[in-house]
């Protein structure tokens, strides 16, 4: 779905622009140079489209992939990554997942945000559910994942990382193929 179709102007934005200007101040040392509320209110009142996520996966695939195939969908960041060992796995419990190896080829600094999305399809090419894999090496998400400010272990830059995208909620049918996309990728 194109973003222009999804535009829904936010009436709250203008109000928020006004109300969000007071705020507490985290700056003791430069107290004499704080921008005043009057100055803050000078921020331009611009209305943006409602924040929208990645385009929804196709409900039906025009070309049905071979059984077990995982296809990488071209998108905004596929030219700066290398995705290998893609596999549609099924555990004994019957739960499907997409696994693979992901490496960033264009940047070496820490990953701030990475999201991989797997769309699962049945034998006739109908969407039966989606799953995602989220990853970060720096910032709050990175710290939460690793328990410390620093990142330990394999990195997405260079050698790369293994990933597993598990459906959530459970699939509505048996997965026969999948399409993987990279809607979010930000390096420090």
């Amino acid at each position: 779905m194109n973003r222009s179709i999804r535009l829904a102007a936010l009436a709250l934005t203008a109000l928020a622009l006004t109300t969000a200007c007071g705020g507490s101040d985290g700056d003791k040392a430069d107290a004499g140079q704080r921008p005043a509320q009057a100055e803050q209110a000078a921020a331009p009142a611009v209305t943006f489209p409602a924040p929208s996520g990645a385009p929804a996966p196709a409900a039906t695939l025009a070309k049905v992939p071979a059984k077990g195939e995982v296809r990488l969908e071209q998108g905004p960041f596929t030219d700066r990554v290398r995705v290998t060992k893609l596999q549609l796995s099924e555990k004994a419990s019957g739960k499907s997942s997409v696994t693979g190896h992901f490496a960033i080829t264009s940047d070496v600094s820490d990953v701030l945000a990475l999201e991989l999305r797997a769309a699962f399809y049945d034998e006739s090419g109908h969407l039966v559910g989606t799953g995602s894999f989220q990853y970060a090496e720096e910032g709050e998400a990175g710290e939460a994942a690793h328990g410390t400010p620093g990142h330990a272990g394999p990195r997405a830059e260079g050698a790369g990382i293994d990933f597993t995208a598990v459906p959530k909620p459970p699939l509505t049918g048996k997965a026969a193929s999948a399409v993987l996309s990279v809607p979010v990728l930000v390096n420090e």
Partner: protein
Amino acid sequence: MERQSRSFAVLPHLTTRSYSAHSFAAMRSMGHKRRKALTVVALASAVAAGSAVTANSAPQHDARPFPGHGQEIHNVIYLLGDGMGRTHVTAGRERYYGAQGKLNMERLPYTGAVATYAVEKGTDQPALVTDSASSATAWSSGVKTYNAALGVDAYEKRRVTLMEQAKKAGFATGNVSTAEITDATPGAQFSHVLLRGCQGPVYSDAACLPKNADGSYEKAPEDKTLITPVAEQIARNGTADVVLGGGLARFEPDDQKALQAQGYQVLGSFGDPSLPAQTAASQKVATKADLAGVKGKKVVGLFNRGNLTVEQAKAGLPADAPQQQEPSLSEMAKKSIDLLNGRSKKGFFLQIEGAQIDKRSHANDAAQTLAEVKAFDDAVKAATDFAKKDGHTLVIVTADHECAGFNIIEKGTYTNAEAVAPPANTDAGNPANNSKPSRDKSGAKDPVRSSGILNGAGSGDVKNFAPATFRTPDDAAGVKDGSPEASLWLTYLSGNHTGADVPIYAYGPGAEKFAASQINTELYGKMYRSLFGRAPRG
């Protein structure tokens, strides 16, 4: 005002020395008495600088006139080398101009230092090592904030930026970077997001919403701007008239439409509106030929889908490689100045970032780091050349933080990272000086950790911590980079930012205000005064 004039008039020669480009090195070699005298002078100058609340129409005085001194300030050009610490400057100087040479930035008449710390989220507790987002918010909005925050304070409140204020007041504005233009440093002047990762093209909770202590996402803010991808904000808020950099992949065709509706000339193509998502095949990056042909006053040029290509890599590519169509930072600086100059009677405010100094320092690639320092310094020259002719332009050159603990070690020595243990820590002559842990001998160089000069004999070993070496103009003819004979030995402490202060240089009317030891939030107030002739109210 009178007090300030007197301070500079009484102590002109000492003030000059206090803030000479080599002041840090010089002070190390001075006796204690001399240092003390200089400290007093430095403090006097800092006080004077801090009290310099001057109007555009009130020329400032010091003992060293230079072209533009005492003139009204019409334009402010703020250049920063991302991740450029004091040693980056020194190493760049030695590499390209020799030990007695100077980079262009070092030729500016005023020098100071900037403390860069951030704060913990929701508090005013210092976090001593900043990221680019927090630091850029400090000088853009005058507030300390948490790492990852852009254009919001530590409490997630939106704060107006200097570029927004300049635009609203009628100045022409520009934002130039070798990074994705949605990256933290340029982003802080013309966007507001809770997390810097919220760059686009799409929203996602993981990229745009901070997490609570229990790992759940915070509730979306009332002000939805704060979770609107930076690319969408840039394309719609009209804050910068001239936008040059990388990051085309962050934008979509509806962004191009929004820009064109505001009168921007958009170089290249943001893609095919009929596609659900854009790809390298559907978008067309701008080229330096496109840029050269720009006549309009408002322009957006994105020359790479990601960050621009590092200069050293570009130099090694064939002439017909697509990367050769990317302009250098210096070329973007010149063009942006051309486009902004004279656009408004008020003047202009332009930010220019050399982003790859940081990115190549993260990678511990000294050769590319040095080349990016040089490329940034060339942009400084473009700005100061203009300022010298114009006479009404303040040029400020600084950094957001140091990156990677860049260091110059003595030829033939080694670092702790290369050794089996740290240096000896005993004082046989006076055992009272001994402390813990006590080490009776220094650790030898470990051949496993140090397998040869990194850009020479040891270049094939990915676990090698040895220094990289570079020839300088002072070296004998025939001395090669990567050889033990090269005189410039460079090492990195880590792949991350450090909390070291960064240098600042300034030229033009009002430049003396920056000759101080200052906190990065103070830069906002000083630039505000330069543009508006008064202090920010509050």
